C-alpha cells in the first residue's frame, strides 16, 4: 500500500504524539494571496502519528520549518488513493480549520473538498 509520489513534493518528518518520529507527504503551493499546504497520509511509510491525529501540531511544525506565516496558509489533509481494494483508502481531500483558544490552535473542523475544488485551489 505504497502512496504514489505524485501526491507530494517531499516527505516531511515531524514530531507526532508523544514526540514519536512521524512522516507525511508535503506539498506547498505558494500563491500571491495564500500559501497552500497539502499534507498527505503515508500509511505504512509513516512510523508514528497520522496527519489527522497530529492536527495543529503538524501545521505549526510545517510553518516553522518552512518559514510560512500561519495567518496566510490554507491547510489541506489528503488521504491518497493507494489502489487498495478497500474503499476506505480512496482519495479524499479535507480543508481543515482550527480555532484559536488561549494561544493554541484547537478544535479542528473538516470540510471534504470535491475534485473540482482541490483542482481550483492548487492549479486555479
Amino acid at each position, binding site marked *: 500500500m505504497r502512496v504514489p509520489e505524485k501526491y507530494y513534493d517531499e516527505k516531511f518528518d515531524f514530531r507526532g504524539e*508523544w514526540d*514519536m518520529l512521524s512522516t507525511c507527504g508535503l506539498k506547498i503551493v505558494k500563491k500571491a494571496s495564500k500559501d497552500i499546504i497539502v499534507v498527505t497520509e503515508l500509511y*505504512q511509510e509513516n512510523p*508514528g502519528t497520522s496527519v*489527522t491525529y497530529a492536527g495543529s501540531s503538524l501545521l505549526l511544525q510545517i510553518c516553522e520549518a518552512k518559514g510560512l506565516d500561519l495567518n496566510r496558509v490554507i491547510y489541506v489533509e489528503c488521504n491518497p488513493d493507494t489502489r487498495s481494494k*478497500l474503499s*476506505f483508502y480512496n482519495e479524499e481531500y*479535507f480543508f481543515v480549520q482550527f480555532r484559536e483558544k488561549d494561544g493554541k490552535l484547537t478544535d479542528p473542523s473538516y470540510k471534504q473538498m470535491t475534485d473540482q475544488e482541490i483542482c481550483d485551489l492548487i492549479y486555479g
Partner: protein
Amino acid sequence: MRETIKMKLIYPRWEKLRGQTTFNLPPHGPVVFAASLPEHVDVSFTDENVESIDFDEECDLVAISMMLSTQVKRGWAIASEFRKRGKKVIFGGIATMLHAEDTIHYADSVFLGESEGRMEQVLKDWEKGELKKVYNYMGKLPPIELVGPARRDLYKRELYNHKGVQMVDLFHASRGCRFSCYPCAVSYLGGRAFRPRPMDKVVEELASIENNRLFIVDNSLAQNKEWEMQLFREMIPLKKKWISHTIEDDPKILDLAAQSGAWYVYQAVYDTSDYIRERIKRYHSYGIGVEGTILLGLDNQTEDDIKRLIDFLLDIDLDLAEFTVLSPFPHTKAYDDLLRQGRIFDHDWDHYNAGQVVYQPAHMSPEKLQELYDYAWSTFYKDESQEEKMTRLFIKVMMREMEDGTWVPRDRRLINKSFGKDIVRTIGR
C-alpha cells in the same frame, strides 16, 4: 541487599458484552510487564475481572495495566482510591498509550511504550521520590531479545477455570505488525515492523507453560513465511494445542500448523466471496477449526449486505463466529476518517467495547446497526448456542490430546466453580 518493593499490580474489570458467553482468560499484558521488573520487586497481582481489589492491602506502589478502552475509566477510579490512601499509582499497557492524555490526570505517572529494560530506572526514580509524570518510550522499542518469559506464576489459577476446565494460557512469539489495518491501532502501539522474538526463547517459554492449551496472541502470524514455518516446526515436539489469529493461506504452512497443534484460528470474514469460502474449507481440510471475526458497520456495508453476509456465514460451516461493530479507537484510520466527517457522537470510553455503536454509519441509522449486530449474534447461534459450538470444538481438541497422550482430565475439585464463583445448578430442582 536491596530492600524489597511491594508492588500491587491491577488489571481493571470491564463490562462484558451482553448475550455472549463470558470466558475470563488469564491476562497477558500484566504478566509480561511483571517479567520486566527487577528481582527486588515483590508483585501481588489482582485481575478485577475475577476477584475484587483489596484497597487496603499493604503495598509500596500500585501499577495499573490496561489493555482495552473499556478498562480506562475503571482504571482511573481505582487509581483515585489508592491515591486517596497515599499510594503512588503508575499506569501502563496499550490502553494507557491510547488514552494517555486523559490518564495523566488520574496518575502519578504514566509509562508509554514497552517496559523491558526500563523499569529499573522508573523504580529508582520512585525510591528517590522523583517519579516522572510521563515515561515516554513511544516509538523507542527495546531489543526484542529482552522480552522474558511472562510471570505466569502470578496467576491464581483456580480463577481461570470453568467447571474444572483450565482456560487457555496466552503467549506471544512476536511484536509489532507490518500491516496497518483500517480499524486497528497496533501499528501505532507496537511499531510498523514485525519483530519476532528469538526462536530459542520462544521455544523455552512455550515448553515452560504447564497448560497444554494456548492462545498465541501475536497480532498476526502471517507476517513472514519462513519464520512462521520455523515456529510451527519447533512447536511440533511440544504437542501444544493452540488458537491464534490468521495464519498464512499456504498448504505447506497449514500442514505444519496442523502438525504443531493448531486447534482453531480467527479469520476475518469481510465479504461473501468464493475466496473466503475456499479459505475456510482449506483450514478445515487440515483439521483446523475457524472462528470467523465479522466487523459490522463499515462504510461499504448496507443493511442488505450485512444480512447477506450473515446468511453466507451459516452456509460456509464456520465453527464459531464473533460479531463486532466498528469502534473508532484513537490512532486508527477509522478514528481519523470518522472524526473528520464529524460522525463520532459518543466519546464515553466505556462504550468502545465493539458491541455498541458510537458513530453514525454511512448507510443506516446507529439504531439499525445496533439491531443488525444483535440480529447477527442471534441468527448465527439460533440452532446451536455459542457454548454448544464451543463444546464441539472442545471435544475435537480433547480427542487429539487423547491420541497424543497430552489430555489432562478436568480438575474435579473445581467442577462446581466458574471463574472462582460457585455454580448454581438448577437441573433436578
